[in-house]
Every structure is written in C-alpha cells, then in structure tokens.
C-alpha cells in the first residue's frame, strides 16, 4: 500500500539567529514519506538532519529558528503544518507524528514514573482516564519487551538501563499509534548489542502498525538493514536520494561515495587504513555559492565552486546534485562506480 504521500516537505529553509550571525542550517530541502515506509536521512554531524525533522514537529526553539523559503511547505495529509498554530500543532504531536530522541538518559523526566510518562500522551490526546491510560501504558511496556512490566510501570527512569529507557521512549512515542515515527539517532548513545535490539524493535512495531518511519542517522550500517529509501544530506541540502540499493550499490554523488567508503567492511582483508574523508563541512553562516561539497571533493571542477548543480535523474527514484553528471563534465579521472552502474 505504498501509494499515498503521507508527508511531503517542499523547499524548506531553516536559519538560526546566533551571536556569530545567521546560520543557514537547512537550505532548500525537499523530501517525502509514504505510508509504512522507512526513509533514512543520512549525513555527518551538523548537516541539518535533526533540524529538518524537528521542524516537522515544530520543535525548534521559537526565539532563534526561522523557517522560510519560497513556497516552503510541510504537508501532512495535505495540510501544511507550517501554517498551524501552537494549539493545532500540539494536537498533531504525539498523536499523528511522534519522535524519539538520541539520548535516552536525558530524554525522560527524572521525577515522573515511567508509566505516567507513557500514559501522558493518552491522557492528553484521547482524554483517557487515569486507570485506562495506565492499562494502556502497561500494554505498551509489554509491547516494547520490558520484563516485569507490572513492576516497572511504577519505577522512575533512574531505575532503568539505557536500552530500557529507549524502549520506554518508543513506548511513549507509539502510545497513540501515530502514522509517522521520527527516530533521531535512536541508537547513537547505546551499546552496539542494544542498538540492534532497538532497531529490530522499531522495525517489527512499524510492520505491525504500518507506521511511516523517518530515521535520522550517520550510521550507514543501521540504514542498510532498515531503510527503504535514503536521502543523503550535506551542509543543509539533500545531495543524493534513492532507494537503499541504489545508494549502496550505485552511489552517484562523490559525498555519498566517500561516506560509503569510510564504512569498515568485515569482508575486507586488505591491510589498508580505513578511508576517511578529509576536511570539515562548510560554515553555514556564509554558505558556499556553488556545490557545498566542492572544497572537499577530489573531483571538483571550476564550475562546482561557482554554481550549484542541478538534479540529474538516474531513474524514477534516484537523483543526485553533482556537476560530474553534466554531459560536458571532464570525467577522465573519476571512478567508474560514480558514473556507471557498477557494484
């Protein structure tokens, strides 16, 4: 049933007013999510992933964040969320769109019982009575595989381990059975073994409930097993989008290519140092005029620094913003993988 666009973001720009100047954190992002699918937003720290998803929820700090862009829209079921006031937004949050956060150690209220924290969204959105909400909370705790749920429901976050807290966070997020779950680096703060369990849990609950998931991460390993589609972000823009297979086996943008090469492979027995991408992302107070990746790109041409690249489409789902794909580009020293469909 993947035919309706549940969520669609058009030309989203977000900037922050800081003492140093205006930081243009997100610069023209377009993306969409269909019912029940998983979209991964991948990129290194500070590329605007979190800001993008937080603007969907209206969770950016009002004093500093400005959402702009000509015709900028965040459409949820054809309603533009950017036009919603705080009251209407809070009716959406937790009910239709939920979010889990990076650090489960700090994301739960330390002085409130876990059960009450789960029950809260049911009370807020469905007007559930205390007893009913508690029963639902218990059900949710069992659903996220918390052992001894009857006992755990009356405990406080400090009595939970990191992995259990993240499970509790998932229970909170899914309590009202939302259509979209945004997971912002949900496993970054957890042990590797726990990471796999948490991702497995999200995946199985998603399948059960047909929830659309937006997974924000810098961990490509996580994405491979989880995502249907991937959007690669760099310096506040999406530089490449495609299905998971397309991104992993046929990357078109040098940045995607570099990201993939910097993932260690178990099958790789060569005694080579792991590839690492040199340099840092550009300062978004003064964003570059051309392709933001040009200063770090091994294949950069003169035009890359002067003008932003247009999208090149490689198929119905696969597109990339890179000058190398322009017919006139000199591609003599570019690896075949980037240009042709080679595994």
């Amino acid at each position: 049933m993947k035919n309706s666009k549940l969520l669609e973001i058009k030309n989203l720009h977000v900037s922050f007013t800081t003492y140093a100047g205006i930081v243009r954190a997100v610069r023209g992002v377009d993306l969409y999510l269909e019912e029940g699918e998983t979209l991964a937003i991948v990129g290194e720290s500070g590329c605007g992933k979190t800001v993008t998803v937080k603007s969907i929820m209206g969770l950016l700090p009002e004093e500093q964040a400005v959402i702009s862009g000509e015709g900028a829209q965040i459409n949820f079921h054809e309603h533009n969320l950017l036009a919603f006031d705080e009251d209407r937004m809070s009716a959406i949050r937790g009910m239709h769109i939920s979010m889990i956060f990076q650090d489960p150690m700090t994301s739960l209220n330390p002085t409130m019982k876990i059960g009450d924290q789960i029950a809260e969204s049911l009370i807020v959105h469905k007007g559930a009575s205390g007893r009913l909400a508690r029963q639902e909370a218990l059900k949710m705790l069992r659903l996220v595989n918390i052992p001894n749920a009857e006992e755990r429901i009356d405990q406080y976050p400090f009595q939970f381990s990191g992995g259990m807290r993240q499970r509790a966070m998932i229970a909170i997020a899914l309590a009202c059975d939302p259509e979209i779950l945004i997971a912002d680096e949900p496993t970054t703060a957890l042990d590797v073994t726990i990471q796999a369990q948490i991702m497995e849990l999200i995946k199985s609950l998603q399948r059960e409930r047909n929830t659309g998931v937006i997974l924000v991460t810098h961990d490509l390993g996580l994405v491979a097993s989880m995502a249907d589609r991937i959007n690669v972000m760099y310096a506040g823009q999406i530089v490449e989008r495609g299905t998971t297979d397309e991104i992993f086996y046929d990357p078109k943008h040098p940045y995607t290519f570099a990201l993939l090469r910097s993932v260690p492979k178990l099958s790789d027995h060569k005694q080579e140092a792991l590839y690492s991408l040199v340099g840092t992302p550009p300062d978004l107070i003064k964003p570059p005029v051309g392709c933001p990746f040009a200063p770090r790109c091994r294949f950069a041409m003169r035009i890359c620094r002067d003008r932003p690249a247009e999208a090149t489409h490689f198929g119905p789902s696969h597109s990339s913003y890179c000058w190398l794909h322009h017919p006139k580009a000199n591609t003599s020293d570019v690896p075949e993988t980037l240009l042709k469909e080679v595994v």
Partner: protein
Amino acid sequence: MAKFIVKRVFYGLLTLFLIITATFFLIAGAPGDPIAAKVEQMPDRAQEVIRKKYGLDKPVVERYFIYMKNLITTGDFGESIIYTGKSANDVIKANAPISAKIGIIVLVLQVGIGIPLGLGTALGRGKMYDHMIRVGNVLCICTPSFVFAALLQYFLAFKLKLAPVFGWGQPKHYILPVLAYTIGGIAVYNKYMRGSTLSVINEDYIVTAKAKGCKKGRIVRKHILRNSMIPIVTMIGPAVAGIFGSSFVIERIFAIPGLGSYYVKAVSDNDYTMVLGITIFYAMLYVASLIIVDILYGIVDPRIKVAGTEK
C-alpha cells in the same frame, strides 16, 4: 523510610551534642566575666557567695558535666546570670513566639511571592518584564534589610503615616518590619527559582514532553515545576530555622521584643546560661529543619527516597 529517619535523628543529636560542647567551652574561654561588673564593689566574701551560686567557683570541666547532667535530666538551660531569677527557658518561651510570628509571615511571603516570580521570569526570559525584575532583584539582594527599614520608616511611616515607625503589640506594628525583612528574601528566592527553572527548561525531557503533545501549561505543571523545586527545597529548610530570630537587626530597629535581640545582648554580657540556652534552641531548630529537608527531598526527588529505603 523509618530507618532513614532514625539515622538522621541520631546524626542530628550528635550534631547538637557537638554544638553544645563547643559553645560551652568557647564562651567559658572568652575574655571577661559575667558577674565582674555586678560584684566589683562588693567585699570578697560576698563575691564568693555569688560565684558559688552560679557554680562559677568550680573548674570549667566540672561545670560542663553539671550543665550536661541538668540539661539531659531536666531540660533546664539554667538561670540567667544577668536577669536574676529568670531561666533561659523562660526568656525563650516568652520571646521566641514574637520572633516566630514575624518570621513565619515573612517566610510565607518570601516563598509565596519569590517562587512564582522566579518561575514567571524564567518562562518569559528575555522579555521586558524579565529584564526589569532582574535589575530590581540585584538591587534588593544587595541592599541590607536595615536600609530598607530606614527607607520604609521615612516614607511609609513618617511621610505617608501609613504605619507606626516602631513599636509592638498591635497588628499595624507588623507592617514595616515584615516589609523590610521580606523584600530581600523575595529577590533571593526569585533569583534561585529563575535559575533553576531555566536549567530545567533546557533539559531534553522538556522537548520530549512537547513532542508528546503537551501544551505549555501542562509542561510547566507536570514537568518543569517539580524538577525546578528540588534545589529550592534545600534553601527553605534553613530558612525555617531562621524564622525564630535571624533578624535581630530588624527587631532592634523596630523595637520588637523578639528573641534575636536577647541573643545578641547575652553574648555581649557574657551571660553564659542565656547564650548556651538560646544557642541550643537555635541549633535544635536548625537540625530539625535539616532532617525535615531530607525527608522533603525524598518526596520531591524520587531518586533520593528509593536510594534511602533500598538499603
């Protein structure tokens, strides 16, 4: 919980014992003599009789044991050396309630106004009223209460004749001392509550609450308030002990016969029994209030309660 309280009370008693012992020897070792001025003109025989009456003829250590024995068996602080015939217990009984009446009103006002003000300024941080209240706050914290007392006496009492300049006995006599004493405290509670609320507002769990769909009012009530009150509870405990007379300055200025002024006078008079008696009284209040704070802390912050009972 019971074990926790028993342990706390035990430590409290130990603290009291140490305070009494230290005070006893310190004041005994202080230069001067409580009866020297009184008996100067008397013949030696008479001096000896008076010294014997107060037990001052015995060595300090022996006096200490006699004092402790009396204190533990009868709860008697002993007869005042300066106010003949009055025991320190009588002085406390007569004057502590007067200090307490003012102190309780002051504390209620300070907490009742300071905390909501702190919460309000934190929620409206950066707005005009926040800046204005902050400036006022600094002024109020930096100005000693006796300066407020003088200003209030001049403007409210002398110029506007809204309240008596000083005195005691009628409800209107409360107005100036309470005002003078309250202002600084409001500023202190306001300042701490603002800071503590601001740090809570920036916590991740507040974003979680918002992401859940909680509206602002609910976030404040359910998520911010309890967490930002935790550091404030620590402040309120000692303040409760303070209501019985931490403000001898105010009592002096407004001629209020509270315990504070007796205490200060007893020290300058070298009135051993009075100093000890009032010190013990304050120390008991202080220790008790700290125990109450510990218990309150457990109620406000679940992490402490459970850690205390699980042992």
